[in-house]
């Protein structure tokens, strides 16, 4: 498992929004995102990030305290040690007070022609 130096996240909200702050969990520890920009209301776009500097077992985006949150699209940019930066875009998902969504994807495997 790689050491994650930093990640940033861009969230497009669909028809049902929620309220700030946006929380994530790293290895099951719940934290608010740093450098929040924009909003999480209907059709709004939000961005934030966090300097992790640790090995990742899990990384999730936490659902709202109450009600639902329609996420139209999620883009996560990862900066891991010994790996070129990479991004992953996740499709639409609905979160609520009982759910969190996995936002961790391992770096792409190296491939080459033989």
């Amino acid at each position, binding site marked *: 498992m790689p050491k994650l130096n930093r990640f940033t996240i861009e969230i497009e909200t669909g028809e049902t929004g929620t309220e700030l702050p946006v929380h994530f969990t790293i290895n099951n520890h719940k934290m608010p995102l740093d450098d929040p920009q924009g909003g999480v209301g209907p059709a709004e776009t939000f961005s934030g990030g966090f300097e992790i500097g640790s090995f990742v077992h*899990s990384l999730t985006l936490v659902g709202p305290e*109450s009600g639902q949150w329609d996420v139209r699209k999620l883009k996560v940019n990862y900066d891991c040690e010994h790996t070129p930066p990479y991004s992953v875009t996740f499709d639409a998902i609905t979160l609520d007070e009982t759910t969190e969504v996995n936002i961790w994807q391992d770096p792409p495997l190296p491939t080459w022609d*033989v």
Partner: protein
Amino acid sequence: MSVLKKLSQMFSGSGAKEQEAGEAVSGAKSQASQGSFAEEPPVRRRVIQASVIMAEAEESGPSDKILIKAEPSRDYEQCKFMVNRPLFEGHSWLFSSFEEAAGSPIAESVFSVESVATLLIHESTAVVTKTGAKGVADWETLAREVGGALRKTLESGTDLISKDIVAKIPAEEVVKEEIQKVIDTEVNPGVAGHGGNITLTAISGNTVTILMGGGCQGCSAADLTLKQGIHGAFRKAVPYVGAIYDETDHAGGLNPYYR
């Protein structure tokens, strides 16, 4: 600011932040003045998965040339070779030793490469394991040699897999029935002690896909159970079984491996 610094600040800082860092679910409400035994346990959030929108795949298109890509696994135990030609259409086969390769030209050529331990052929992929690989560098030379061996056999135009092996593989229904029997009589009684269960989700030719549920889903020892327990039981009882895949999402649900 690093996680450690932030957590340290939270625990040494205000009570509100301390609570925030420690609570598993922010929606949990404490019952004040009822004593610690009366507090509601925090509700565990269920981890769900969003589909990954794939980046545009590299379009190689049909080609007269034999194209082979090598991709080592994350633990470097094996390397997958993706070929733009069918190797064993509709079926899969595990060659677990040099001796078993006899009569199958593709396996004979791959096992002629030093330090190849096993070879799994499935549709248009070949998965090779070697012992002691610790990094990508350990695969660079070997992958080129295996790629060369695969290409040479394909260019020869010969049958790739022994006719004896092809004849051994029964109808899909038979494979399904026998694998289900092993699950019901051996595997599930074994994992039930840990609250686990195994479900057969798909059979394609002699390729088996399973789902690990109950205590097995999210268990950190699931890989060990799969490779040393389930694979062994399947292959012993149903020797013509090919590839065995686990489609369990061990990072999702209420009990993922990291909790």
